[in-house]
């Protein structure tokens, strides 16, 4: 894998309210903290709690973080069509972009930095749409190495009630498996 995360690295996770992107941001931030990094997580959403476009941002750095929000993301995740329409254009040449397969019919994949994966479909296969954020995080991290795999897994399981542990472990594994579909495609 040739994607090397910058330091600081700016991550923007986007989707629809209810898909758990804010929780995903918190999990990623907790994993970064376990790795001994400095981290700031912010979020933005509309007045409605569900179904509006929502955004969670994480900055991970080995130094002190002053400005707490993402200017241009180095890593971008879009899990819904709304989020894609709103946030896809805001990126630089090297922004690593992971999209759910259904966010657009346009051929936006470039085989280099922009990829589509069936994240939502995989979550449903695993057992429930509620784990879409865990599938997405596991896949995104397998492709970008933002945080260590062990920290991310621990951060996921810490957030999860005991009875959903197996479901989330399966979602994590499925996300990592998904990532292998594009692993070779990165030059």
């Amino acid at each position, binding site marked *: 894998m040739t994607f090397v995360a910058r330091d600081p690295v700016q991550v923007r996770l986007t989707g629809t309210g209810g898909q758990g992107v804010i929780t995903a941001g*918190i999990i990623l*931030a*907790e994993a970064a*903290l376990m790795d001994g990094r*400095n*981290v*700031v*997580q*912010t*979020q*933005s*959403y*509309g*007045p409605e709690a569900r179904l509006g476009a929502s955004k969670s941002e994480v900055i991970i750095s080995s130094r002190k*973080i*002053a*400005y*707490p*929000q993402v*200017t241009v993301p180095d890593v971008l995740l879009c899990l819904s069509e709304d989020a894609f329409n709103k946030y896809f254009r805001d990126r630089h040449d090297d922004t690593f972009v992971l999209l759910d397969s259904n966010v657009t019919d346009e051929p936006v994949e470039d085989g280099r930095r922009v990829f589509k994966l069936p994240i939502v479909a995989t979550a449903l296969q695993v057992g429930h749409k509620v784990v879409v954020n865990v599938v997405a995080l596991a896949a995104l991290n397998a492709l970008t190495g933002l945080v260590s795999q062990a920290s991310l897994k621990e951060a996921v399981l810490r957030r999860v009630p005991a009875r959903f542990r197996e479901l989330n472990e399966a979602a994590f594994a499925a996300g990592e498996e998904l990532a292998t579909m594009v692993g070779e495609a990165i030059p």
Partner: protein
Amino acid sequence: MKTQQLMQGNEACAFGALYAGCNFYAGYPITPSSEIMEIMARELPRRGGVFLQAEDEIASISAVIGAAWGGARAMTATSGPGFSLMQEGIGYAAITETPCVVVDSQRWGPSTGQPTKAAQGDVMQAIWGTHGDHPVIVLTAGHVRDVFEMTVAAFNLAELYRVPVVLLLDEILSHMRENIFVPEPGELEVIPRSRPVNGAKPVAPFGGPFIPLGYGVRFSVTGLAHDDWGFPVEGPPAERLLRRIVEKVWSKAREIARYEALYLDDARAVVVCYGIVSRPAESAVEALRSEGLKVGLLTLKTLWPFPDFLFRELPTTVEYVLVPELNLGQLVREVERAVGGRARVEHLGRVDGYLLTPEQIAGRVVENLGRRV
């Protein structure tokens, strides 16, 4: 070894309050302050404290004042619309010299506005929102550890000066999470409530330390102008009361001031900021310094009483002062007054609900200072 925690601004506020000994919370939920209330609802009962969800914000502030007189360390938290409703109670707390803490997590206003968007539009309201000349202390914070510390400071200052203390947060800071070392017990000073000495002659309840009801001293607590025992007065004693309660805060601006100064010594320009705007301001000043521009940063954490002395004592090299705020120009007026013409003061406002960026702040400084070093 101390470990770090990922903590949200609102979480830091709630745990800061508990650290300071808060044992009573009354409130009515409102975005973006609700997490403070949720945590207090969970934590206070299990620690022997009292949590009350009131029917509105007027009842909330009233319950807080009553609880303080009942001996509690009391607080409430809200956002703009609720803060407007609380103004009457804040005035009552001011004239009855009731120590209490009111947190206002600012959102875009006026009115319902944009509940999930940040602003700094309540600054003047926090200072002047209730009618009549009155004492109040207004604090703010710019990062999550700061929220914890300033919440503790709010309880301490409320106790020391017997005033309502307003802590201004905002939507971004309230909802933001970052890694912090959570203060250990004993790490931050907590000023305890004074207690009457057993067997000592009763002292008047007004004009000295705060003694709650129930210690054998009989007195009245009223919003009317009153004497040292709480009974109504008019004329010169009323004037004496007003002058005393206002002066006890206004005369202590230096003692109450909390601030951070960076690179002021040789500065030609100074960025004066507070709250969440201190974050892009710091990024901007660091970037300008790395380009060799002589720019300083003054971050205010006490907004009232206004720290005039900081501006009177600015180095004579300063020719330009920029005050970025998430409003159309509020604290800039105080800055302008305190600078008193010794430097040009300019405001940079952003009111679309989003945070000013480092580029916006740095850009404005460069426009005014040029690239000359």
